[in-house]
């Protein structure tokens, strides 16, 4: 696969100009006691300026590893076997650690999942945000300046400025998550990775946080990569989405197109196994089997053992990610035969 071809599929459904962030052919493996694990397999995608991309998939599909690769924070036993991560054309994977450190938070910030554990329990919220500010201001920011800055950020995310002097345990889950967002915004990053930003929050709080993120994005114009297992959340916030399965991208494209008619049986099954509360209740189609063991992934298409459409070809050959239209690319030999989820039988 040539670089140009990769770039076009990676950009399926996105803008044509040079993207802000490009991931190209990223392949990562973890060395464990039981042998190597292929965590990310030839993943390519691009994020344009001010765009929001959703990465969706089940646990262990590699979406969090992608996020950690972007920050250069993969665990010690991880090896990047191939690929590039380019931020405005500069390959982050080739940067020495001291250079990479300057990009973290300043250019790529992260909204972590599980907002309680993202905070160090022994410092106040302000101290922890100040820390990010002073590092990237090379120690020239005085405390009073930092307080003003954090006050502004708190206003932006809808938190009372007094909250900054509280300790993490004194805030509710929703407040902590807002503070995490404020911290992510502190250095005006170009890209924010939101890793399960609302998991473990109640739906009403989730709704508020998601709306807030969308509003802040339109005001400040940064790019956001949303990572979630919940396809409904992704549908709400992402312009484009990439569906991941077993470390690779199964399908990528503009949200409207993919949700309108998925062209990969895995995306189809994600949609048909998510009960919606709007519209008629349709039959839900469970997926047989379990996600593959990445110590020993199946040959051919990684999805074939669970795929209702699989043939002998799928067991033998791995389908490449191919452009179907300008707005959609899928890694399936039978992409044109994937049924429309709206053809599922109506129950109630």
């Amino acid at each position, binding site marked *: 696969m040539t670089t140009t071809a990769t770039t076009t599929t990676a950009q399926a459904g996105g803008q044509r100009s040079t993207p802000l962030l490009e991931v190209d052919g990223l392949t990562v493996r973890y060395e464990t006691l039981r042998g190597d694990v292929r965590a990310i397999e030839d993943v390519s995608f691009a994020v344009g300026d001010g765009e929001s991309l959703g990465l969706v998939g089940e646990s262990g599909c590699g979406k969090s590893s992608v996020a950690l690769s972007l920050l250069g924070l993969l665990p*010690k036993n991880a090896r990047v076997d191939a690929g590039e991560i380019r931020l405005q054309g500069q390959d982050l994977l080739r940067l020495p650690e001291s250079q990479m450190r300057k990009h973290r938070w300043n250019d790529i910030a992260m909204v972590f999942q599980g907002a309680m554990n993202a905070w160090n329990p022994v410092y106040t919220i302000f101290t922890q945000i100040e820390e990010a500010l002073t590092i990237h201001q090379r120690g020239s920011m005085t405390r009073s300046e930092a307080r003003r800055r954090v006050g502004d950020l708190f206003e932006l995310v809808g938190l009372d400025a007094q909250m900054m002097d509280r300790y993490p345990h004194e805030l509710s889950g929703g407040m902590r998550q807002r503070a995490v967002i404020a911290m992510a915004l502190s250095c005006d990053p170009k890209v924010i990775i939101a890793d399960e930003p609302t998991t473990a929050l109640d739906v009403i709080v989730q709704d508020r946080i998601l709306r807030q993120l969308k509003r802040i994005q339109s005001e400040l114009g940064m790019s956001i990569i949303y990572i979630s297992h919940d396809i409904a959340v992704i549908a709400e916030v992402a312009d484009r989405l990439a569906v991941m399965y077993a470390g690779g991208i199964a399908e990528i494209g503009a949200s409207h197109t993919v949700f309108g008619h998925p062209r990969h049986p895995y995306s189809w099954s994600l949609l048909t196994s998510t009960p919606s509360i709007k519209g008629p209740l349709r039959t839900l189609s469970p997926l047989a*089997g379990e996600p593959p063991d990445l110590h020993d992934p199946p040959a051919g298409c990684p999805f074939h053992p669970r795929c209702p459409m699989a043939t002998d070809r799928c067991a033998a050959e791995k389908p490449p990610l191919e452009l179907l239209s300008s707005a959609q690319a899928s890694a399936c030999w039978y992409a044109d035969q994937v049924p429309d989820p709206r053809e599922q039988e109506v129950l109630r």
Partner: protein
Amino acid sequence: MTTSPQRTATTTGAGAEGPPGTPQDGSDPSGRGLATGRRARLANRIRVLRASFRENWALFKRNRIGVVGLVVIAIFAIMALLHPILMDTVWDPERYHPVVGYSAQEVELTVVEEIENPGQEIDLQRAQLRHDPTIQVGDTVEDTIQPAPPSLDHPLGTDPLGRDVLSQLMLGAQTAFGMGAVAAMTTVIVATFIGSVAAYFRGWVDTVSMRSADFFLLLPPIPFLIFLSAIYDLNMVTLGLVFGLVSGAGSTAIVLKSQALTVAVKPFIDSARVAGASGMQVVLRHVIPNVLPLTFLYMMFTVSGAISAEAILSTFGLIDLPMSWGIMIQTANDAGYILRGVEYWWLLFPAGLAVTFLAFAFYLFGRGMDEVVNPRLRQR
């Protein structure tokens, strides 16, 4: 559905995720699916035990300090076991018995002002006293020496009373293991019971046992044992029991309770209660089995502490034992050989190092196990 040959262990039952209730293959539909139960059960137990042993051994081995500990323990265990055999076969009890044996060596000694080589020299004063008041420096005399330096007969020399040091060292190993075993058993039984019951029942049971743990914490075992020895005569069993009780009802109980607490809030405990288990049934079948690995770990640390405690107390002559490593040091000390530096090294080093190494080895072994049984320490 297509299946591939590379399905892994976890997914062998993949059919399980298919439609419910329908038998997935042609297996016996009569409901007697477990007719081969007993054999299968046994075979599976063995399979699981072997698998978990292999996995744990791999984890244990990775951290080499545990293996070092295990090897040292094995060496001392062999020494302890070999002692009665040697006494029965090779060693003449008259000369080699660690307590009542006597073997003074006849050697030719040079008379000197100050002894530098204990095996070859004798000081003037002693020589004049024992032989002939006219003896001068530079003469030689025939004399028996005790303590005698290592020789072929006595690989580690003899002590100030002319007893074989190696034999004492080996019997001392028996004492150390015995003391360690008594203390460890006591600790484990006391701490597991207190910890599990306090964690599961909470309320006043918890309050009482934790206040008593505070009490035992304020009572460091060695000062307490010293205090007890002022009033009672202590022997190995009482020493082991007291040491085990103090550490078992004190710090170990606190640690095990916090571990049991993480078990006691797990859903499977509620699940057992919903299934109809009584409080004691839950503790015995569900809480204790899950804190047992950690219990075993603390057993190692107790053994380590107990060996050291016994040696300290017997060094100060506070317990009634036939022989132990501490007594060996005490004997040397009483006869005034201890602060003479390395000249009489075989009186100080074998016993001192034996205590150190065995306590060290048990601790290392415990550390090595810690990496296996303590999921918090496993690397991500």
